[in-house]
């Protein structure tokens, strides 16, 4: 954590709340934290804790009810519209066109990001190769396995070489091979400087992946820090142990 605090802010969240129309309770309540350039921040919590809502607000998909989200470029607070082209988003759903081929999907989203033709084709070829999909680039996604679709879902999020990448359950429902391919690529990108904000229910995977952890429950931050610090602080042996310790064993909706 110290290492990242010395680096520059990329994101500063100050007291954001979110209440959906007609909802009785707040989905997020007075949430504040910082994200530093180049770090991998994991957001964890039980179902309904507010993880997806938080990621949706940070990536500009949902507006916050109150509070502020500030983005920084070169340590200067900047307009969200300026940071938007530098954002990559990998949603939990397969946000892609099953009727199109893998290459067509990448080409479409890449063009929408404003990539020029040669640069885009190079990027498509490189991503398909890295994710082990170069031999099926011209096949329709409808014929892909869940793991292959999950890799394309990630590739689309990476097509614009984002500086900050939001990952909502990027490895849910995939086989171990796909999971390894995805996590390896994410670590490589992070090593090159991409900041990552990540949610997952794969806590074992998250323990290895994240530099820093944010635990949410009922829309509030209940713990924040490096995993080692948190485990020591709460005398827990693992992230799973820590979550049970802090949020209880009661089943959630």
């Amino acid at each position, binding site marked *: 954590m110290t290492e990242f605090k010395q680096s520059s802010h990329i994101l500063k969240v100050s007291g954001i709340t979110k209440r959906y129309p007609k909802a009785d309770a707040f989905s997020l309540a007075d949430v504040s934290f910082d994200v530093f350039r180049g770090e991998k921040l994991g957001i964890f919590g039980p179902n309904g804790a507010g993880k997806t809502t938080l990621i949706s607000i940070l990536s500009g998909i949902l507006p916050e009810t109150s509070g502020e989200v500030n983005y920084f470029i070169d340590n200067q607070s900047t307009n969200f519209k300026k940071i938007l082209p530098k954002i990559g*988003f990998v949603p939990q759903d397969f*946000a892609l*066109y099953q*009727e199109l081929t893998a290459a067509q999907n990448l080409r*479409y989203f890449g*063009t929408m990001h404003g990539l020029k033709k040669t640069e885009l084709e190079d990027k498509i070829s490189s991503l398909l190769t890295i994710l082990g999909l170069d031999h099926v680039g011209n096949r329709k996604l409808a014929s892909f396995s869940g793991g292959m679709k999950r890799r394309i879902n990630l590739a689309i999020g990476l097509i614009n070489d984002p500086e900050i990448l939001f990952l909502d359950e990027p490895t849910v429902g995939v086989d171990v091979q796909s999971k390894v391919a995805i996590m390896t690529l994410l670590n490589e990108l992070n090593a090159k400087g991409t900041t990552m904000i990540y949610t997952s229910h794969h806590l074992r995977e998250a323990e290895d992946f994240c530099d820093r952890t944010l635990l949410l429950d009922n829309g509030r931050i209940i713990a924040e820090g490096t995993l080692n610090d948190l485990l020591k602080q709460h005398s827990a042996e693992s992230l799973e142990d820590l979550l049970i310790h802090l949020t209880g064993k009661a089943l959630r909706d």
Partner: protein
Amino acid sequence: MERFKASLLKEILLLLHDKVGLLLMYLMPLLLVFIITIVQDSAFRLVNENRLDILIVNNDKGPLGDSLVQSMKNAGSFKIDVKEGVDESQLANLTLEGSKLATLFVPANFTQSLSSNSQRISDAMLSEFGMETVERENSGNEKEVQGGVKLIFDPVLQESFQVTLINNLQTMISGIESKEMIRQLYADMGYDEIPSKILKELNRNRTKIVAKPAMSGESAMIPNSTQHNVPAWSIFAMFFMVISLGSNLVKERLSGSFVRLQTIPGSFLHAMFAKIAVYSFVALTQLMIMFAIGVFVFPLIGLPKLNLPSHIFPFLLISVLSAMAAISYAAMVGTYAKTQEQANGFGAISIIIFAAIGGIWVPSFVMPDYMVMISKLSPLHWCLEGFYSLFLKDGSWNQLMGPVIYLVVFTVLCQFLSLWKLRRQHYI
């Protein structure tokens, strides 16, 4: 521009993949326009050409029965079969078995009956003029001879056709009666037959009726099944794109593609404009194909040719406005529907209801007054009104104003409601 082109390409690929949607948008209306036009064409011919299929059983022993048969044949409004010596009790079965719409029974004493009536009138007239009446074999016997014709209808024949047939028959019998009366009068005055000059004047003395369709211009288009069905089913086809476009929108929304586009600046509007462009192309090609079939294919299979309107600009305007109304409605359904099933179900049923009340299946002019009022709620009705004005009435701007205003308001309202919903969902 590259973004728009990419969105266009994506929409075209998605559309080409949607085989069911394409069949519903292109093949279904083609089949419907062929089937319905062929079926309705015979009904339109019945109305416009009055070729009612009629059997005449002529049992008359005198010449006037033959005169009546000849008059019916000469009228050209009926397809006539003649039989003789058939018993009156067999008429109903004969009508149904022979697939005739009506059977006219001319009794054996038809001539006798008409002659008897004529003699009485002739006697009365001669007496009135102070002339000597003729002594006849049955003088003093005033009993009227009953020799009226009978008309047996197939129960399926509409009342309007029955009335038409009765009126036609009445006119012909009146003509025969008048002629017989004059012949009798001349015979009683000592002439062998009606002088040719009088006969000629009698035949010439008909008041002419000129009938033609009401049109503002010089066009001479005659309403027929093609002029109704081709525009009607083209409109239906355009609005049926709700199945393809509506479910396309729902699918993108539910899959998260829209959410992803939200994180790409400006891309969402490009995607929406591309959808509108592609589906506008679909709607206009639907119109072109349907109209081309009406013009070039229908005459080859014996159906009336579609006469295109002479005013091209208003024709294009109504076509584009109809397409925009259809696209906007489909987009609204796709924006509000929560699932693809909901979009497909609601979309299809709503279009079928709009079509039914809007006069697509049955022209609204045959509907009762309250249904005519209800039909004005249907956007399909206003599209059809626009095309009717152009195809049947050689539409002037005054006639087109109503449809144009309604379609513009409907399109703007649907677009506004869609944008409002998308805004509420934070897509724009």
